[in-house]
């Protein structure tokens, strides 16, 4: 009885202490400590991974950097917390990180029952399968009875179950904590296929000793809109993260890049560009940041097209095509409300 009490106390202490640490608004906290604490993945090339110098790069990392640029005018004022899929929501809920930008799928359950708000979609993804070429499998429908390496605590686990149930097939799931462990087990031959978001499959495939020994199957079995998330109930912070992402998409649409942003700021006559860069019209202070927040983001981080190409697109080792992530005007889904 007494020991149970002690345990109860331990848990409650953790949460109640976390509660008091976050009494003020997130923006005040970020400003006073001087950096944004951003939750990222434990290492997915192209999305968030640390290089040999310990520098984080990736399309998710660039969202964190954009938020830092909007607040401080300096994209470097970010500290990263690598989180496993299992840890991520608790870390955000408890206030350990200010925002989560960790290839996280926006779902109903997560948006409504976890005390989180998703601020947009920085990558439209879908779940796919990676199989060894030796199997000679051409379609996911041939995978009846196969075993799958999966990362625990992801929508992937649920989609896989749904897909096999819908197609009346059998499967064996082997769940690991990190995506690194899944690829290691896949390489060791523990499973026939690895399943995850398609973007990750390309990233993980590069990590294989011989990338040619595995292929990504054409099927996409789910919708995976990946986006940053913040704690529910702090609208000001929610707005900053949401509009930092929108600013990058708008910048691409308006043709503003990190290379020409200074020139555009000085000489552009397009009112849309002038509002984005904080020259006229809207005020950054409406969400508690400097007026040139849009300029800082594009200058220090880049527009959406730039961060896409640099991290996962043509300019990167992954070489993923824009597909669904092209601008709406070019046949994709990336669409941002106007800044006005």
């Amino acid at each position: 009885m007494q020991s149970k009490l002690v345990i109860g106390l331990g848990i409650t202490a953790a949460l109640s202490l976390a509660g008091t640490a976050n009494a003020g608004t997130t923006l005040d906290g970020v400003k006073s400590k001087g950096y944004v604490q951003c939750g990222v993945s434990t290492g997915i090339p192209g999305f968030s991974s640390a290089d040999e110098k310990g520098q984080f790069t990736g399309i998710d990392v660039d969202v964190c950097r954009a938020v830092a640029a909007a607040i401080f005018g300096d994209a470097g004022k970010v500290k990263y917390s690598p989180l496993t899929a299992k840890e991520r929501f608790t870390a955000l809920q408890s206030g350990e990180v200010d925002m989560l930008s960790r290839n996280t799928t926006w779902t109903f359950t997560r948006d409504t029952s976890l005390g989180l708000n998703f601020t947009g979609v920085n990558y439209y993804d879908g779940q796919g399968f990676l199989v060894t070429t030796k199997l000679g499998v051409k379609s996911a429908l041939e995978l009846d009875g196969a075993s799958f390496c999966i990362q625990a605590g992801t929508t992937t686990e649920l989609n896989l179950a749904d897909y096999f149930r819908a197609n009346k097939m059998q499967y064996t799931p082997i769940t690991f904590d990190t995506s690194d462990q899944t690829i290691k087990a896949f390489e060791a031959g523990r499973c026939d296929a690895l399943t995850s978001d398609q973007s990750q499959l390309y990233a993980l495939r590069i990590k294989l000793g011989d990338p040619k020994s595995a292929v990504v199957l054409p099927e996409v079995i789910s919708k995976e809109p990946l986006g940053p998330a913040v704690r529910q109930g702090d609208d000001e912070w929610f707005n900053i993260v949401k509009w930092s992402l929108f600013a990058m998409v708008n910048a691409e649409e308006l043709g503003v890049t990190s290379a020409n942003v200074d020139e555009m700021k000085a000489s552009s006559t397009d009112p849309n560009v002038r509002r984005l860069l904080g020259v006229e019209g809207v005020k950054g202070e409406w969400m508690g940041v400097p007026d040139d927040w849009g300029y800082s983001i594009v200058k220090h981080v880049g527009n959406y097209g730039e961060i896409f190409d640099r991290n996962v697109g043509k300019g990167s080792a992954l070489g993923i095509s824009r597909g669904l992530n092209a601008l709406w005007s070019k046949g994709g889904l990336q669409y941002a409300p106007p800044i006005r």
Partner: protein
Amino acid sequence: MPPQNMPQTSASKVPLWRQPVFRATVFQILLVLGILLFGYYLLSNTLQNMEQRGITTGFGFLSNEAGFGILKSLIEYDETDTYGRTFLVGLLNTLLVAVLGIFFATFIGFFMGIARLSKNWLVARLATVYIETFRNIPLLLQIMFWYFAVLRPLPLPRQSLSMGDLVFLNNRGLFMPQPIPEPGLWVVGVALLIAVIAVVFITRWAHRRQEQTGQQFPTLSVGLGLILVLPLLVFWLSGSPMHLEYPVLGGFNFRGGMEVIPELAALVLALSIYTGAFIAEAVRSGILSVTHGQTEAAYALGLRPRTTLKLVIVPQAMRVIIPQLTSQFLNLTKNSSLATAIGYPDLVNVFAGTTLNQTGQAVEVIAMTMGVYLTISLLISMFMNWYNKRKMLVER
């Protein structure tokens, strides 16, 4: 404790607040109240915080549909079952590892502990090397090592190693024929029960006879024979009410039969080898704690070496070994939670992993998980303490 032999008259003259008994009681009540209040404050504060942030609370989630698959389950489980069921699945998998681990670790430990004291130089040195190596490498590394050591050299399902086309081994696991009971098997169970009861009575009778007459009776061989032969005979007479289901290669892997997954094998191997090294040292310390004079005295009384070991050394050594053994069993059970590193579906992997993340109810899930480990540990402790009491020196 109330002071004894205090004259009744003087106690009544002392004011109430200066009476030690009264004061002690009051202080204890105050302390308990304080702790309860503090606990209540923390709990209500937590609930309020979670409510403010829109985090769902309560245990209602346990009856929601889980919707994810689990690698291996000892009970029937599929994706349409509830989160509550995933708790059971994880719990049973944890218990399976703990029981297997404790069994093998004890066996390895006793064997190696005695081997380290062997007069044979090679045997003693080998045992020393084993103990010093495995005791000093972190367990997590050992689990990873065994997992990949078990996994890598084994062939793919289609090139499985087979023994007489009955047992197959590949990197998906070990596949064996599974006995499927048919109606009527209960008779065999009853026969086994009768055999066990008979053996108990025979042992008592033999013991009494030896005390009275000094004549010995081969209890061990007769007992084993009875336990083996009687059920087998009944099984044969009742027309073998059981058949075997054989594993068959189909598609990607074998189906049917019994399966030992590599995760379980690696985990049990790592846990029992690691804990076995500690138990070996406990056993050695126990045996060394029995002074040499005891052995000499036993020999002087004319006891043979085997009888000396059984009646003089082991009973005394056990008194030193048991408390240490208890700690090691507890360690092993708790260490089994490292299973999550290699994807074995234990309680931490399934329930405090996937279920926690799909529902997001960290406080409830972690509280339940901790409650389980606490309960298992306390049960092991209780059992071992009871066993320890029985083995303790009885002073007459």
